């Protein structure tokens, strides 16, 4: 028989004012297993807690029930109290007789009767409570940041500055990401690279950061505190330890291909750094286009390299390392406007995307900052900007707002009027969304500089001779409008990286219908994922502008450093557990788990003198969060939830129905 002690809190008059504690005490005394009952004015006060400790010792209590306020308030307090008296903290139950009883009922009789039931529930349950131990998980204090855009850079720097080792993995030859492709940034019109490059250099020089560019994450195993990650470091064909970044190789390389960085508007060499400020400033050979790799002849770069750094024989390298935490900061892709047949299906050279415009207006871009239209190099006299291309358009399968295209279009209009004075500019918009600091003012400024804003979605853009005709509707005037433009800039939206779903599956995190990564809670846990130890930063989680991406990156870094501040993680022991003797190994519990905490394992046992092996389910304590949804899928009850076990809940039901 268990020896249960029950402590009835008055909470001043909060409880005692409505519930007749004396009568409650009388009823509780007769409950099975209860060997000791006492009343306290305030159980949570130090004297009250001392009474519990005293009760445990004097009456050799092995279970404790406190009838007081909500367990959401003081469960942890009382767990520590019983623990300090030498009892396992999980041998405690709380009857919520304040929030659920004395505060919501007026009739003393009724409230007292209900309080008796609530205590009986707790007493019935606590009989089945088992001593539980918090699992301790060692933490590998090394973080992996995937993606070297502004979000990844910020997260890596913050974690490294806190004194922890960080590996930053970037799949392109240089870090910098999308921000490096931008010209100016709204709403301040800072030069994008001017504010970004110092951070890029910080990354390269930081003693705690190991930078792996031209590399990708191939495999992720393990769990929080103990991820085991395999990274593929693609062959650069350049020995990074020898290369000085002098540039002779790419100056001399005789072959050019369209530059990805300039979105095909300019060209790059086959051995190249994507842009002049690249970090690391060390080239790669694009083996797909390299003449030597195709024909076995050329080797011009090798001849001209003063450091002897060219290495055609280099191979991909697979590196496996342990990490305690992972930050995914893989950014976004631009919506491909070829999907808009009504806007020329990507075929007309003078209908360009917003990012193309960034490259056109950028001083180090293919036109050296002169705005010329791609078809014939003519300086445009009128430009139409169309927002929400690939955003908020159900017909193209994208319902969400890209969050940046209103603002970057306003910026483009301002830059255009500065660079090409007298050039007419029109912005077709659905709604102007300017919720950031200084954003509305910035939009107003672009209006004042003469940009004409037309509210309405454009129906069609077509070519008529030398110019383009933009056909739309001004919904404010209720009139159809036709605008002749020399160039049209489509403010294309943000989509997840093409391979985002694949990476999410590798990481074991969930993603939405578009393949943006899912945060653990849309409001309260915006940088965590449902997989403990994996965090999100930047546009991989959803469209974001630079300040939001940086803020989220610092948030993710704070989560990582908080985790690294301890040597071990304690896992809540209130998790699912498998009774292997019963488990049939059907694994129908597995698809239920949102944390992928359930896996199968093979156990061997002796049956009728033979050793046989069979499959059972197993729960990873590092991943399980204790929701218990799996337990209901388990027909034989082999899967149970500690702290809310089948035995406990059934006992509670029966106690309350009695």
């Amino acid at each position, binding site marked *: 028989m268990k020896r249960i002690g029950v402590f009835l809190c008055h909470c001043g008059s909060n409880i005692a004012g409505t519930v007749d504690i004396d009568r409650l005490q009388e009823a509780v005394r007769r409950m099975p297993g209860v060997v000791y009952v006492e009343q306290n004015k305030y159980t949570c006060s130090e004297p009250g807690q001392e009474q519990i400790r005293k009760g445990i010792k004097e009456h050799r209590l092995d279970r404790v029930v406190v009838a007081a306020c909500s367990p959401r308030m003081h469960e942890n307090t009382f767990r520590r109290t019983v623990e300090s008296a030498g009892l396992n903290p999980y041998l405690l139950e709380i009857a919520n007789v304040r929030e659920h009883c004395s505060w919501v009922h007026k009739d003393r009789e009724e409230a007292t009767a209900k309080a008796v039931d609530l205590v009986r529930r707790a007493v019935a349950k606590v009989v089945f409570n088992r001593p539980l131990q918090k699992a301790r998980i060692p933490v590998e204090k090394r973080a992996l940041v995937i993606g070297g855009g502004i979000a990844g850079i910020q997260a890596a720097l913050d974690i490294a500055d806190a004194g922890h080792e960080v590996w930053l993995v970037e799949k392109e030859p240089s870090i910098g990401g999308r921000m490096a492709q931008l010209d100016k940034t709204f709403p301040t019109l800072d030069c994008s690279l001017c504010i970004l490059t110092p951070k890029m250099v910080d990354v390269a020089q930081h003693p705690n950061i190991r930078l792996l560019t031209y590399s990708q994450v191939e495999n992720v195993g393990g769990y929080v505190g103990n991820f085991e990650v395999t990274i593929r470091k693609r062959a650069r064909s350049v020995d990074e330890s020898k290369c000085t970044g002098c540039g002779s190789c790419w100056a001399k390389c005789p072959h050019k291909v369209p530059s990805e960085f300039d979105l095909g508007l300019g060209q790059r060499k086959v051995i190249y750094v994507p842009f002049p400020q690249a970090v690391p400033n060390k080239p790669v050979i694009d083996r797909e286009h390299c003449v030597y790799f195709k024909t076995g002849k050329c080797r011009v770069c090798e001849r001209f390299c003063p450091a002897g750094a060219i290495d055609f024989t280099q191979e991909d390298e697979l590196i496996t390392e342990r990490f305690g935490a992972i930050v995914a900061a893989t950014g976004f892709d631009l919506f491909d406007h070829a999907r808009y047949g009504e806007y020329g299906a990507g075929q007309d050279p003078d209908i360009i995307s917003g990012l193309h415009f960034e490259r056109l207006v950028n001083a180090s871009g293919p036109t050296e900052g002169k705005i010329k239209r791609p078809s014939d190099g003519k300086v445009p006299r009128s430009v139409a900007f169309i927002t929400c291309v690939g955003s908020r358009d159900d017909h193209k399968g994208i319902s969400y707002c890209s969050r940046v295209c209103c603002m970057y279009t306003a910026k483009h209009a301002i830059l255009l009027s500065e660079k090409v004075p007298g050039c007419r500019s029109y912005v077709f918009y659905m709604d102007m969304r300017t919720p950031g600091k200084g954003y509305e003012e910035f939009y107003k400024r672009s209006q004042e500089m003469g940009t004409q804003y037309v509210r309405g979605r454009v129906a069609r853009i077509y070519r008529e001779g030398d110019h383009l005709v933009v056909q739309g509707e001004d919904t404010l005037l209720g009139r159809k409008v036709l605008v002749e433009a020399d160039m049209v800039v489509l403010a294309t939206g943000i989509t997840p990286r093409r391979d985002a779903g694949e990476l999410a599956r590798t990481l074991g995190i969930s993603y939405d219908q578009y393949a943006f990564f899912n945060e653990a809670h849309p409001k309260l846990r915006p940088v965590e994922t449902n997989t403990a130890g994996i965090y999100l930063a930047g546009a991989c989680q959803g469209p974001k502008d630079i300040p939001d991406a940086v803020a989220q990156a610092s948030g993710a870094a704070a989560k990582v450093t908080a985790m690294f501040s301890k040597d071990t993680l304690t896992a809540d022991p209130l998790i699912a557990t498998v009774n292997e*003797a019963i*488990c049939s190994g059907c694994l*129908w519990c597995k698809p239920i788990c949102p944390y992928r905490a359930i896996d199968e394992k093979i156990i061997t046992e002796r049956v009728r003198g033979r050793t*046989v092996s069979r499959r059972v389910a197993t729960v990873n304590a590092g991943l399980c969060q204790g929701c218990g949804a799996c337990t209901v899928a388990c*027909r*034989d*009850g082999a899967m149970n939830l500690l702290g809310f076990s*089948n*035995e406990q809940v059934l006992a509670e039901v029966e106690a309350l129905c009695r």
Partner: protein
Amino acid sequence: MGGELKTASGGMTGVRSGVGSELAERAAGLLAGGEVRMFLGYGAGRTPLRVRPRHVLRPEAAGGLVWNEFCAPSLAKYLLEEQEEEGRVGVLVKACDLRAVKRLVADRRVERERVLLVGVGCPGVVDAGKVEALLARAVPGEMVEEAGVRDGVLVVQTRSGVREFPREEYLLERCLHCEDPNPRDVDLFVGPEVAPWPARPHDYAEVAEVAALGAAERAAYWDRQFARCLRCFACRNVCPACSCRECCFDVWEPMWLPREVSVSEQYMFHFTRAFHVAGRCVDCGECERVCPVGIPLMKLNRALQKEIAELFGVERPWEPQEKEPLAMYTPDDPDFH
């Protein structure tokens, strides 16, 4: 006439006697060639209307296998215990039995590679219990001496005379719903394919009948049904969707099902049994066939099938689904009102 009748005691005529000998030959060959260590089929039963499962271990014993219209029982569940031994087992399956095997495979209780499925086209099988009841109603204590199916008519020679039963009367209920009497994707097929007959649609008429009662009558109806339950667990034991190592009804802690036999606990038993196979029932009707007190268990299983079909748009809920309907969700599932 006895000589012409196809009886469960093995004397068969016509096409299906050919199937019987082909089956015996194939089974002997599989055993002799070591492809299977055992062959599970049917052997003659104690009465002409019934057959018994036959576990054939040696090629010589394959001659005792029979195949006829009395082969109603599904052999699928026997595979479960055979999994404990090494080696592969051959098993004779009708189209309906194949669903049961798929169920066990989907539940990872039977390994597909360790089973050799021998399919056979089925002309529809006899509901022995029903026929026996009809005979007994006419002549109490009636004894069947010989029985066989000829041109779609069941002819029964009893002590007191000859009785004939038309097809609709003798067929097992699941045969009326049979859409294709030939099992597909089996490892071996014996005998010819059987032409399908017009299948009764899964219209859940029997469920609608109960649902149409008022709430109080409905409870009274189930009270009457459940009051007869002996808790013999035959329904569970035969069910291909009930394959847990240790059934929750046998577990002591927690006591999901107290051992007390009261109608209240029968509700717990029948609710739990049916709910545990919800979304997984293959509609074989074996539970109802083996129930010694005639509880209409399929009215429970089908009610759940119907709910799942209606709520979640599962089109053929009796087929083993790729994802268990209750182990998945969609964000736009119907909400409560």
